[in-house]
């Protein structure tokens, strides 16, 4: 008998049954998700976009935020951020067609972040107001490492992409990408004497540009 069978057999023996009933199990699993409002914190304001904007700059997330009216204003907004941090106009820019169509004159751009990259910019697929989370899906125009290697992680998010709660994203996650990266702040650690330090391995700074 294979190890697989040995394990499954001992699990079944422990449960005292031969065969599960998938339909009954699915119904029970669905019932466990009923009334989600009872098991999650309510948004501080009803509008998910405003709730996200409040949340992302709160100490819980600790990001910085700039709001712009239209995507066309992104290169100038990014320039303001880089200038404020004394950084050159150089970026690992996600090769997202919408971002690449903007006017990046004066910028040195590359597709993927180097191990010591100062700043990377990517477009979040979704935002989640409940936690101030940005969601990125890996793919042909999204390298996972672009969210983890740079010291400054800059993310652009379009307001209509903001969902109220974590479950709302879960409901949309099909088909699953190889990696769904939910980013809620910059990298941090409390591993030395419990004191909080940012930039452990991942970015030290998270800057969000919210469009709309």
């Amino acid at each position, binding site marked *: 008998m*294979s*190890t*697989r069978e040995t*394990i499954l057999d*001992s*699990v*079944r*023996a*422990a*449960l005292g*049954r031969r065969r*599960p009933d*998938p339909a009954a199990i699915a119904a*029970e*699993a669905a019932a*466990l*998700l009923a009334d*989600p409002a*009872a*098991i*999650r*914190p309510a948004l501080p304001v009803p509008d998910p976009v405003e709730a996200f904007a409040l949340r992302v700059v709160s100490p819980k997330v600790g990001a910085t935020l700039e709001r712009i009216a239209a995507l066309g204003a992104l290169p100038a907004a990014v320039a303001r951020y880089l200038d404020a941090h004394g950084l050159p106009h150089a970026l690992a820019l996600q090769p997202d067609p919408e971002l690449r169509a903007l006017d990046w004159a004066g910028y040195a751009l590359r597709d*993927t972040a180097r*191990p010591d990259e100062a700043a990377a910019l990517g477009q979040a697929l979704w935002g989640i107001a409940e*936690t101030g*989370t940005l969601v990125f899906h*890996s*793919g*042909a*125009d999204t*390298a*996972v*490492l672009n969210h*983890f290697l740079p010291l400054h992680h800059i993310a652009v998010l379009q307001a209509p992409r903001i969902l109220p709660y*974590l479950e709302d*994203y*879960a*409901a949309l996650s*099909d088909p*699953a*990408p*190889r*990696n*769904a990266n*939910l*980013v*809620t702040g910059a*990298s*941090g*650690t*409390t*591993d*030395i*004497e*419990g004191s909080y*330090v940012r930039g*452990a*391995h*991942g*970015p030290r700074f998270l800057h969000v540009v919210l469009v709309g």
Partner: protein
Amino acid sequence: MAATHADKVHVFKEDVTRALGDATLKLAIDRTTVTAERKRAAALVDFPEFAEARRRGTAIKNHVVANLDHYLEQFERNALASGAHIHWAKDADEACAIVIRLCRAAGARSVTRAKSMLGEEIGLPHALAEAGIERVETDLAEHIIQLAGETPSHIIWPALHKTREQVSELFKAAHRDPHKVEEVEAMVESARRELRDRFMNADVGISGANFLLADSGAVCTVTNEGNAELTTTPPRVHIVTAGIEKLVPSMAHAMAMLRLLVRSATGADLTQYTTFHTGPRRAGDRDGPEEFHIVLVDNGRSRMLADHGLREMLRCIRCGACMNHCVVYRQIGGHAYGATYPGPMGAVLTPALEGVEKAKDLPHACTLNGRCQEVCPVSIPLPTLLRGWRDRSWKEGLVPQAMRTGLGLWRFVAERPRLYRLGSAVAVRAMRLFRRGGWIASLPLAKSWTAYRDMPAPAGRTFMEQLRDRERQGGRQP
């Protein structure tokens, strides 16, 4: 054979004595656990739905445990469909053998590892060393204890027992370009510099799993440092080791559990980096592993499932809240438990994993004050389960003779109320002879107690004596 903690000789009493005598350790434990306790409490103030969320989380895990066969098969089916390879391991040795075989097949010289308690449980660090494969721990705390040649002392903060001065020394001795100023920020940066090329040059990345999603075959990892993604993305091969109890039906269920897990562990609402991994790199992907392996490990879990008490322990989501709130853990730290999992959850789990003979002292390292059960996000009745182990070790004759005699004597007296009242009346008066300002610093026959803390001096008369007086005076009866 993979060495686990059980192979080392741990004498619980000696370990405890050493821990209690270590003032630095007590300071280090307090620095982290006190902060953790405060942050968790603050997080719950902002989450009035916690009680209901906890009931639901408990129900979700009970549902998974009661249908574990179904969810294992569903997870396997979906993970295979996503292009993952699934391996099954009955015990620690099998699990390590599978990982080593996969590393060798990948021609691995260097592997990076993101903290996983299951990995510690099966003795993977030791197995990799024996196989001559360089292991680079990437979680900052795991990196610290790897440099120190130690094991984790907490499941969330493995290096909680280290002071900043100790960390500084370790980094200065090991890092190529160490920090120059004695500040925690500079030390963290030193580790960042040190590990950068290790991440990028590893042949295999190994992680654990916080949740396995049955309906998609996805593996969920959570970190605050981002080291899991840096561990699992650059190498050609990603290996996940996970206990079979880590399943949840779907991502929506995982979200409900994450709300409980993160608040209970660190007091945050969500970890900074929460990633769902589904299969290997796809056509056109810019990065990610070409091979994705998931090792499903039983190692005693199906045995726990057959035991109605211990089955409840399979709900555990490894948040560490029970140890942060445990008066015993906060005195002795994690190493004194001599096992992978310390604190209340460890005292229940270790006898189940390693046998009650090897871990017979652990269920006694508990005051039964019930704090652990109170804070457990999935309502595990830890004190009841600990009592179950005490009962079992009594029945199996594992309790030392001195303790059996003592308890027999106590029982003799307790069954005779007159004798008991006389004895306690003498004791409370005698104890007051040793008091200094309301406290007793040293007491004959109780030296092992008073060596580490003072005992409050008893009132001059027993409860029963005081009650009788009140009744006589016609005062309000309690």
